[in-house]
């Protein structure tokens, strides 16, 4: 019999706010069902319900015709629901070997008897690795998980979930840290599981991946399923359902802008110990997009310009004057702002309001002597909320209670309002839904139009194409390609990024 996991009218709320408003969703065994939704649609909450983290939800969950209750994470697992969460580092146990990690749940349950040494579990670990066709040798299984790359760690977590022979496997943004070839490998494993009869719920922002792997597609918006499709998918319909009406019409082609005057000259800067020094000029009135993979030196460029880390070598000239910021404060005073890549750890303060978060870098302007100008701060925040179409109750709402996309709008808005001369955006679209992404990229382009310099660092070609005028490909700390968008193509950019020299 084909297994199935059925959700009927699932509801749950936090405080007085309903997040899921009656979700009906069935995932059949032997199929990959993709779940698409903007940030704040309720995807993570739905996943947590299915993982047994929210036992108090309303509605029913039916597995193979039987109504079940998911009271704890372990009861969800026992009933055959395994979840692979987005954060890989939270899934592996550092200090243990690959084999021990692989069999961790069995060891924790004492299912393998009292385990004394890695030698005792090795036969079982090899057997499991073979069954899943991972091609892992005994030597590999003995290594500490620390030594594994992120892709292997991802596979390890996946394998661990598969050992338990789940009926439903939930994958939450499984590819967010993987390179293209690693994604390919992951897709192969997912297909094998599906053919083995497992039902997969695949949660991702990446439409290309969903198109490759999924058999069905459901769209969640505002706590309700808005649409269902089977392959082949109608993407315009799906995106319409995901974003709500209206947002689609704003999507239009950018008019390419070319700046002439340089705002920042970087001279013989080297990003890594071994990388060759290079010079670069960032110009006013255009959006410079730097694309590179993880470790290509993107973040290092941003931090060097912003004074957030010591630069190894090289000099900079900003608006004709020597510029060597030793602390972000030096950069901010000159009008050079940076939006860092990790929003939660670098821009947000637990339970701070929008008003407080947005005013922090500009307190001097908003204060009268030592005293805070609380009124000025709030009206400034209200303007940011309306400028960036932030979905919030008002300037006093806490930033952590907003969805990811709206949080990012708050972070971007606070710097935009400070009238930057040069704005650096490091991975501005990470964990951001398409609607918010559109707003942010329009704002960045608007800023360039007004004559400021804008530098965007990203690792995704689609994002680059959406926001940039000028394109720089960065590989191993050195710029490879420097041209304008109209003079290059997606293929050329990808080719330059991937070519090994």
């Amino acid at each position: 019999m084909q297994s199935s996991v059925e959700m009927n009218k699932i509801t749950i709320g936090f405080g007085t706010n309903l997040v899921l408003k009656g979700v009906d969703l069935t995932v059949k065994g032997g199929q990959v069902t993709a779940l698409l939704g903007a940030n704040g649609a309720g995807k993570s909450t739905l996943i947590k319900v299915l993982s047994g983290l929210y036992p108090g939800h309303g509605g029913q969950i039916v597995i193979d015709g039987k109504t079940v209750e998911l009271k704890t994470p372990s009861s969800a697992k026992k009933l055959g629901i395994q979840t692979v969460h987005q954060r890989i580092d939270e899934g592996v146990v550092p200090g243990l070997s690959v084999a021990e990690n692989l069999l961790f749940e069995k060891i924790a349950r004492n299912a393998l008897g009292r385990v004394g040494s890695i030698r005792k579990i090795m036969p079982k670990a090899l057997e499991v690795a073979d069954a899943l066709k991972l091609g892992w040798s005994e030597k590999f299984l003995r290594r500490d998980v620390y030594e594994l790359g992120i892709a292997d760690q991802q596979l390890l977590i996946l394998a661990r979930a598969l050992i338990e022979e789940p009926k439903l496997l939930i994958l939450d943004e499984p590819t967010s840290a993987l390179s293209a070839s690693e994604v390919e490998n992951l897709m192969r494993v997912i297909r094998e599981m599906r053919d083995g009869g497992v039902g997969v719920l695949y949660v991702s922002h990446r439409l290309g991946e969903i198109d490759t792997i999924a058999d069905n597609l459901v769209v969640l918006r505002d706590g309700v399923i808005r649409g269902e499709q089977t392959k082949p998918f109608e993407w315009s319909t799906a995106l319409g359902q995901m974003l709500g009406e209206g947002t689609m019409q704003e999507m239009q082609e950018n008019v390419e802008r070319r700046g002439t005057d340089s705002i920042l000259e970087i001279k013989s800067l080297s990003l890594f110990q071994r990388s060759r020094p290079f010079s670069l000029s960032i110009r006013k009135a255009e959006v410079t997009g730097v694309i590179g993979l993880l470790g290509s030196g993107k973040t290092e460029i941003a931090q060097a310009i912003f004074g957030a880390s010591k630069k190894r070598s090289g000099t900079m000239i900003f608006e004709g004057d020597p510029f060597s910021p030793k602390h972000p404060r030096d950069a901010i005073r000159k009008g050079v702002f940076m939006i860092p890549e990790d929003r939660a750890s670098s821009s947000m303060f637990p339970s701070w309001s929008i008003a407080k978060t947005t005013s922090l870098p500009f307190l001097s302007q908003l204060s009268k002597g030592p005293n805070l100008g609380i009124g000025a701060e709030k009206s400034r925040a209200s303007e940011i909320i309306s400028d960036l179409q932030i979905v919030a109750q008002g300037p006093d709402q806490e930033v952590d209670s907003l969805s990811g996309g709206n949080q990012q709008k708050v972070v971007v808005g606070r710097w935009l309002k400070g009238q930057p001369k040069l704005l650096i955006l490091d991975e501005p679209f990470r964990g951001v839904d398409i609607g918010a992404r559109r707003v942010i990229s329009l704002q960045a382009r608007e800023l360039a139009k007004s004559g400021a310099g804008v530098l965007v660092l990203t690792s995704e070609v689609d994002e680059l194409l959406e926001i940039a005028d000028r394109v720089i490909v960065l590989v191993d700390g050195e710029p490879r390609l420097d041209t304008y968008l109209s003079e290059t193509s997606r293929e050329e950019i990808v080719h330059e990024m991937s070519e090994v020299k």
Partner: protein
Amino acid sequence: MSNKTVAEKRAIFRVKSQDAIVKYGFIAVTIGLFSWFAITEETFRQPSTLFSMLKFTSVVAIVGLGVTFTMVVGGLDLSVGSIAGLGVTVSAMMMVIYNLTGIFSGIMVLVAGAVVGALNAVLIVWMKIPDLLATLGMMFIVMGLKLLPVDGQSVSSKMILRDGSVAPGKFTDGFLQIDRLKIWEIPFPVILWLVLTTIAWYMLTRTKYGRIMYAVGANPEAAKLSGIKIEWYRASAYVISGLFAATGGMILSSRIGQGDISAGNSLLLDAVAVALVGTSVLGAGKPNAWGTALGALLIGIVITGLTIKGFPYYAQDISKGLVLLLALVFSFTLSRKKARFVPAT
């Protein structure tokens, strides 16, 4: 959404009432205990008892205010008790042994507090020693060091000095007035407590400085990337803590009227406790000036009440511990943002 069902309304009510408990529970407990003592004990409700309670609480409260500043920047100061004790010894030495004026002695006490605070800051901020360990080490050093110039003896007037002569000075009348003065029947230390709390509240909530202090404590990395030199703000918290602790020591010295070598030692745990209790007042969930004042007040009420009711002295420690745990229940166990069930519609 106006079309809510009865079940939804009930769930919303439950959530709201839990928030109310977190927000007002602590104040309700304070008022409840106060009323209970006041109704059942004749002595407790006399103004003289209340003022003496406030007066004896003021020292802990003022030292606790300093601890509050270090907690705001995400640290803690364990050396406050020893700094207060240092203040007692320094003031006695200045006046009794060196025959200096009360005002000068008071200033020297504050200088001593600021210096120890600055040393704490250097250890924690620039030498990167964890705050608890650095201030613990500093606590022992100060406790021992202050005994060095007085040969480990309490300093009192007419004491015999090392060279056989009699100490020339005494606690000046002005200095003794710090603790004894009353303005409209209110003891001066209580007024000082109120004034300092108001100043600390204003600094922390209404000034740029205070906002930045909270930012540094909440997320130092994000504060740095907002252009804040976090080192200086963290350092300032320890200097302020030293100043408040020294002020507490000054009141204590004026109260005892001699340089008691063990004075201040018991203040540490009480001061840290009231600052911690303060984090739960009004559901603030963060260290704050009025919270610390109210925390000190509650502990003062409990101790005074129990003493009048004839409980043995060790009941004080038990009750302090219970008050602290109760406060932590309010801010952790009953805290918001946990998943709450709203039934299906």
